[in-house]
């Protein structure tokens, strides 16, 4: 059956949304890709390469590739700085869109954990993470830019001029709205945002991507003693987060290997509960990690600031159970994947359910891309924690299900 005149809306421009959009466009299905921020790529585009003398299969470059493919694809109409307002379900879905309020609402922005690298005009201009972002520069504060015309990057677009309001009629909708990174400020004893050299896994990715190496925020120097604290926000009964986020052990171990590779004199310690598998060759990788890194099966509770922006960690020794204190010059909180802020409102708008954990619920065990509503599909971390590879596979399945629904298989 012909794919002409079939149109699908994909909500969310992260790796899952990009993958669904591209897969559908391959079969000449027209795609409307809706992204609430002003850049495509979601969180995963912010990740860095972690290779040592070999690739560690983190998948960060796969996101770059997919973004490039989508940017070059004429069948995909991208609407940046746009959110969903409501939907009118008759034969087709008439989805009403509105300009996103996210970036002008600093509280919402902070909560959602999105922030972008700023170029030389601090606070006035945002820059995307990838060279494949178009536009690459977005003007937040027109006045500052008008006062410094020479400094404004070529091609910069005003945020006010971005975003669309209006209704688009589509034949199916895919929710690929991604996740929210755990807000490490909730764990007050870790001093995140109070102590300079306590960073999250996401901060670490951004630093390495920008600077080419992991450096301490306080002085820009490479750290000599690094601590990774795993399961921050995940597997936490007290917070009610009864899930493993899948990605934190892989990203921490890979980053740790990278740090050791760049600077063999440095010491990396991983504080953990249970180490999860990373990649398909995990046993071999784990053996390498055990040679290079210290593993302590204990989660420190308290971090105290010290001179030189160092940090004192307090944890229970494994052998005698007595408290031990150790000084590190960089602490990385391995934060996990939380349900996105908009999940409840999106679920309400589309009439679908959330799981107990707050992610979108798949229809049944064997098909986690279909929902209880015909024509509404889910893909990626919107459905639950996933690695990049798993998000892409999930998105591929969603595309396949969409095509069956449209009757164009």
């Amino acid at each position, binding site marked *: 059956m012909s794919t002409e005149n079939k149109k699908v809306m994909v909500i969310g421009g992260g790796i899952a949304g990009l993958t669904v959009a591209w897969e559908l466009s391959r079969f000449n299905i027209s795609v409307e890709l809706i992204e609430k921020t002003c850049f495509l790529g979601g969180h995963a585009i912010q990740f860095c390469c972690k290779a040592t003398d070999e690739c560690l299969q983190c998948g960060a470059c796969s996101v770059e590739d997919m973004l490039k493919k989508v940017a070059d694809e004429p069948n995909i109409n991208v609407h940046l700085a746009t959110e969903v307002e409501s939907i009118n379900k008759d034969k087709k879905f008439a989805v009403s869109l509105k300009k996103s309020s996210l970036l002008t609402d600093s509280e919402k922005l902070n909560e959602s954990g999105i922030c972008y690298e700023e170029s030389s005009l601090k606070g006035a201009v945002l820059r995307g993470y990838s*060279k494949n972002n178009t536009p690459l520069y977005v003007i937040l504060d027109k006045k500052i830019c008008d006062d410094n015309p020479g400094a404004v990057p070529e091609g910069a677009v005003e945020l006010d001029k971005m975003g669309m309001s209006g209704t688009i009629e589509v034949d199916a909708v895919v929710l690929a709205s991604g996740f929210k990174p755990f807000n490490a400020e909730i764990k007050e004893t870790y001093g995140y945002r109070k102590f300079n050299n306590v960073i999250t896994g996401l901060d670490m990715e951004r630093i390495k991507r920008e600077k080419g190496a992991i450096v301490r925020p306080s002085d820009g120097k490479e750290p000599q003693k690094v601590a990774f604290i795993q399961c921050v926000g995940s597997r936490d009964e007290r917070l009610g987060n009864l899930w493993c986020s899948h990605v934190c052990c892989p990203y921490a171990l890979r980053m740790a290997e990278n740090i050791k590779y760049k600077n063999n004199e440095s010491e990396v310690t991983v504080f953990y509960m249970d180490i999860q598998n990373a990649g398909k060759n995990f046993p071999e990788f784990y053996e390498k990690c055990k040679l290079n890194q210290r593993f302590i099966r204990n989660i420190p509770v308290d971090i105290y600031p010290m001179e030189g922006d160092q940090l004192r960690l307090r944890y229970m020794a494994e052998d005698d159970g007595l408290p031990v204190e150790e000084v590190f010059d960089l602490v990385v909180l391995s934060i996990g994947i939380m349900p996105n802020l908009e999940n409840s409102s999106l679920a309400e708008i589309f009439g679908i359910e959330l799981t107990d954990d707050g992610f979108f619920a798949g229809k049944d065990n064997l098909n986690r891309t279909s929902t209880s509503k015909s024509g509404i599909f889910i893909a990626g971390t919107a459905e*639950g924690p996933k690695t990049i590879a798993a998000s892409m596979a999930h998105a591929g*399945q969603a595309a396949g299900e969409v095509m069956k629904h449209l009757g164009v298989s």
Partner: protein
Amino acid sequence: MTNFTDGKELKINTDVLVVGGGFTGIKAASEISNLGYQVTLIENEANIGSQKEQKTLVGLTDEDHKCLQEMESRVTSDKRIEILTKTKIATIKGMPGDFSVRLSNNDNILEKKVGAVVVANDFSVNSLNDKYGLSLSDNILTQSQIEEILVSDKEKLADKTVAFLVGLAQETNPLIMERVMRTVIDINEIDGTATYIYTGNLKVASDGLERIYKEGRDKGATYFKLQEMPKISQDGKIVSYHDPVLRRDIEVSPDMIVVDDEIYAGKNNADLSEILRVDLGAGGFLQKDNVHRFPVYSNREGIFVVGPGRDVQKLQAAWMDVENAALEIKSFLGNGIKIVPDNKAVVDTGKCVFCLTCYRCCPHGAIYWAEENKAVISPLACQSCGICASECPMDAIQIGGFTDDEIKNSVKKSLDAKNEPKIVAFCCQNSAFEAGEMAKKFKIKLPDGLKMIKVPCAGKIDLDYILNTFVEGADGVLIMACHNGNCKSEKGNIYAGWRVDDAHRMLEETGLEKERLRFVTLASNMGSGFSSAVAEMENKIKEIGLSPLRN
């Protein structure tokens, strides 16, 4: 966005061979048949689907089992699907779109022509009792045996203490973990039972598994996280270990001990790898742990690997793979007519001496030979890496858009520019070239005298190119490839590294400083990394001076 000239229409075969009659293979047959293609589903054993021994279905509800049965009966009565049991592949020849397969069924040989292959062969599962130094007995059981007891003879477990050993002999995975955790919950629902689970790293990176873990503990299970294997008496009656919480040595006497399984790649995989000319990855699975292969690609066009064929995963994930493979099949086979470019990779038959070097080095199995005893490159299978072109001792192969002349002319032109020092960087289009573009766009500092030459894969970079570039007046040459394990063509970066080694030896002999030539690996998102690498070269040249080869 292609370097290729328009070509001709090529009619291809649109039948598909599915290897593996478990539920993944059955689902694959179903999906592909629904797309309108003829499917031949082959299975090594005598039975498919529900009649096959299923060791790795976990967490399925009654609804799910009904769904599996329905699908199985649909597939067995589908006229577009031919099911052959006790059958395996003897040989496969030809190219994607035109594979000639010989299937063997006992002594019978069946010839088939197919356009694509989907490999869905099952895992192997083994009990790890040997690794714990234990022999199976009435009270030392495998995971499958305890599951069987729960189904057929539950009351046998009343008032019993059952100890589980999991993830201690070796790292385990969420699939095994879920089986153990569900069994633990079931046992705790029987009167008077107690369960002690001795574990290494608990693998909970799977949907809902942390909740299942909690449910077990809420129902009375005790999990002990040990750093090393407990000592167990040969009769399985005494288990001794050091308790990390109580910090004491403890001895328990369970009524039963359950040892965990290991899941590993199917026994046929090594054979299939050779027959299909598909790379074996870690653990013997039919897919390398290379991000370019995810989710369902192999190194060969037209041959896809799904589910248990490529990784340890649950049925839900295997079915995800199947739907991805179905999309790939649809995209690849289409309506049976492909437009094939003329100049993707061209063999000059006048120069070809039929040494078969190209056949051997092609990472995608895209080269074969014709009756005229000349190498032929399939335009459908070729991925334009150019490894064959640079390995060919007769320089008989040219890659569309990246011919020897085109590259040499680019180099010459780049060295005409005035800026100093002259640095030529050969950049793989999948990694370094993108990183260089990222550096440029983000206005990261790059040397004025830098010129980037794009290549389809670092494997295309001939030794000639490197030496020629110095002769033409470069002060420094960088060969910039993908990281080890990240090459789209698996080994293009390895070949490139070897050529740089060869070039280094030659440079040494001529007296030209070795530091003028560097091999660097990058990823497409490493703008800073690109900048550092080229800056380092610029600094080195400033130190040792411009090339003495320049007049």
